[in-house]
């Protein structure tokens, strides 16, 4: 019988969950996580010297992409600078930060408008990280499948979970 979920590997109480369009920071032993990234891009920032980090769940590249109001952190253009600023306020220099990103998939390939959102998100996130002076060390992006990510703040390992590949580490 097929199990209809991918289980956490324990440690459920240490999880700091970042919701869709949100940002958050944490220190070890917290585990930063965000779930079900489709066309969204999850950004994980890690400061090895403080065993601290931040995570964002970005939905759209910039506020020009929608007429609707709402939280600004769901745009890459706002989430990246804000997350870096939050970490710097907590004592992490942007030069020490290491970034890993995941997501930006084309979940519905048949629909050309929806298929483009993911890759546009990836582009803009990369650009914003570059503008913020933060090194992008690894990524698991694109494809046509959803991902959940966990950032472990002692090792900087980003666990990427999907029905497609099970669990990968980057």
């Amino acid at each position, binding site marked *: 019988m*097929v199990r*209809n*979920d*991918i289980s956490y590997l324990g440690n459920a109480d240490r999880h700091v969950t970042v*919701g*869709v*369009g949100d940002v958050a920071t944490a220190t070890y032993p917290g585990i930063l996580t965000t*779930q*079900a*990234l*489709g*066309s*969204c891009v999850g950004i994980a920032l890690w400061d090895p010297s403080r065993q601290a980090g931040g995570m964002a769940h970005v*939905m*759209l590249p910039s506020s020009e*992409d*929608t*007429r*609707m109001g*709402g*939280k600004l952190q*769901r745009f890459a253009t706002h989430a990246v600078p804000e997350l870096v600023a939050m970490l710097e306020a907590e004592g992490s220099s942007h030069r020490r930060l290491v970034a890993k990103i995941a997501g930006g*998939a084309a*979940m*519905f*390939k*048949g*629909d050309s*408008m*929806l298929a483009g*959102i993911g890759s546009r998100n990836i582009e803009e996130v990369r650009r914003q990280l570059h503008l913020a002076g933060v090194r992008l060390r690894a990524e698991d992006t694109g494809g*046509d*499948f*959803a*991902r*959940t990510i966990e950032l472990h703040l002692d090792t900087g390992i980003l666990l990427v979970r999907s*029905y497609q590949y099970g669990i990968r580490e980057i």
Partner: protein
Amino acid sequence: MRLEDLTDMQIDALREVGSIGAGHAATALSQLVDHRIDLEVPQLEMLPIGSVPDVFGGPETLVGAVYDRMLGDLGGGLLFVAPRDSSLALVDLMRNRPVGTAKSFGAEEEATITHVASILASSYIASIARLADLNILPARPSFALDMAGAILQVVTAEIGMRAENALLLRTRFFNDETTVDAYMFFLPDPDGLDVLLGRLGVV
């Protein structure tokens, strides 16, 4: 206008549109497979988009989904969702076989679900178009089998309806032996909803 600004009267108008659409879909599906398939008149619900994945047990729950974009006078689309096991049961129902016969999602199962969802969506769209005297056609349907949260988020990201409500039509497919519940989300863009409600004469 946002969905949560609707009055009870307006919701009743949409409910009427939904039940007519379901009736047409039942006829079409029965003709398609040459055995009887019934559709229960859908219940109309409104719930915050953020809590939609919880209807399926959480954002990571594996669901089958078909998205039908609307073209013409109304923007947005219809999203059909059924958890993986329900989706396979629906395939069995369509094929007139005992539930449990279809064991995994192959090309044939994907095609069946896409077809059923697209007939249902087209029926709803046709009944809206006729009652509201609008020109609306469905675009080609697209299929995905993956986490509920990701699927929901992809179709609502461009509409930007993150904090808004979704209109949900619970649809029950059944025959004498089997019952399968699926969910159809009506996600018009806000401008389109103004037009629609104006035409239904209730604004």
